[in-house]
């Protein structure tokens, strides 16, 4: 895995947190006011408006509870993949809304799921999956049910 390039290194890291070491962490942020958000940015806090150094990076563990899921059956062909080296999303795929243990709720693609058995409230974990189209190994973040 360490030979692979992260598709979106600004958003997540291969290394997990101390609490959840076996799953990639998400690159969130925390404001001086206490608000925890994803992804990290320094433009300004949505709750209090502090900006710049008041917003500090915080690693969010790659584990949370499933809030909702939906399998997408129609996906516009024109929706661009981030770049030509990356496989586009091809329907059907399943999207999940996950409330992270560390606060924010994120939405992304789920892997290794059977739509019929997915239940809101079940524990989901982050995982990196290959998304490259060519020889270059590229991985992107997905969520999958915890085993």
């Amino acid at each position, binding site marked *: 895995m360490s030979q692979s390039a992260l598709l979106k290194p600004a958003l997540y890291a291969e290394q997990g947190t101390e609490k959840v070491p076996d799953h990639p962490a998400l690159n969130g942020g925390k404001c001086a006011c206490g608000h925890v958000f994803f992804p990290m940015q320094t433009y300004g806090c949505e709750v209090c408006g502090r900006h710049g150094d008041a917003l500090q990076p915080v690693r969010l563990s790659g584990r949370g509870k499933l809030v909702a899921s939906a399998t997408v059956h129609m996906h516009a062909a024109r929706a661009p993949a981030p770049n030509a080296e990356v496989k586009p999303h091809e329907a059907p795929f399943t*999207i999940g809304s996950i409330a992270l243990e560390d606060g924010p709720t994120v939405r992304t693609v789920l892997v290794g799921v059977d739509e019929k058995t997915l239940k809101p409230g079940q524990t989901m974990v982050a995982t990196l999956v290959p998304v490259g189209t060519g020889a270059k190994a590229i991985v992107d*973040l997905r969520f999958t049910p915890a085993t």
Partner: protein
Amino acid sequence: MAKTLKDLRSVYVVGVGWHRYQPLSDTPYVMLGLPAIRAALADAGIAWTDVESSYIGTGLLGMAAGRAMLKHLGATGRPLVHIENASASGSAAFRHACIEVGAGIADVSLVIGVDKPGVVQRAFTKTGIGNLADDAIVPFTHFALLTNEYAHRHGVAPQDVALVAVKNHRNGALNPHAHRQQARTLEEVLGGRPVSGTLTTLQCCPVGEGAAAVIIASEDAIKRLGIDPARAVRVTASAASSEAAGGQAGADAAITKDTIAAALQQAQVAPKTVDIVELHDAFTIEELHYVEAMGICKPGEAIHLLKEGAFDIGGQCAVSPSGGLIAMGHPIGPTGVGQIGEIALQLRGDAGPRQHKGAKTGLAHMVGLGAVCYVHVLQRP
């Protein structure tokens, strides 16, 4: 202290007009907008030269659509402004026209919503802040996720949610301005192409082209221009808001709840006394969310009222008698203006086969990407 629309001088809707909402065609936007405006002027019984300002709600046409269209009515040299607020563009245009007339800066204003489908890059993709998979999560998947959450929380089956579409297609079949004018059975709705989650195509609004126009006027203008006061419908509340921090996935329903409450308080109307609601049912689940947020019933109970026919034309409260976004359609700029037009027709008793008898109070609700929310209350004495 800041004022509400109700504190300003009275504002009335005195004319309404449409160009049918329809799939994308070769018709230039100018020839969608002009027929709607001419119909609204004729409905009001006034001339274009009586209109003192124009508000153009449009999301997809591009910059400066207004004068190139309005000049064909005779270029009067009067002010015009374009308002873009995503799905709520037309509702925002209506609000600001009402504020101008209410404030006394104009006596008669035009609100015209006009649009054609076009590719406009959404600005939130240009903030410079990344996202995990937003390219895979379009609006119908946002609402498919909310459907999944609602269904689990309240033990509601997908075929129950689809009943919203059956009602709204039935209403749209009676509306000559609607994009979809065909009644559908539950089997047809459920048997359509799956889109996302349990949503099927007939549970998602069509985004086509069209136009809707309303003329608003002050009491002074109604007297001066000889407009029939019996056909004037007063705008008794206008409220607007945007998503506050921490709203997460339920933001649309949260801002709907607060904004409808503010509008009803302004109009001094109780939720259960509203006769007609035109709401943002771009996807079936939204109608359930928003009637509950409005306070017509408790969370999870909307489906029972829907099954009892409470939201039918002739029921306790006719919800989206126009057909709503699902059947009337959602051409973006026109949508919010068309809601106001439908409510004006209903309150005047001019809605023909869609008439909800005895309607005195109507509420129009839109949300737009962002999220933003607009609510207006219209009443006749």
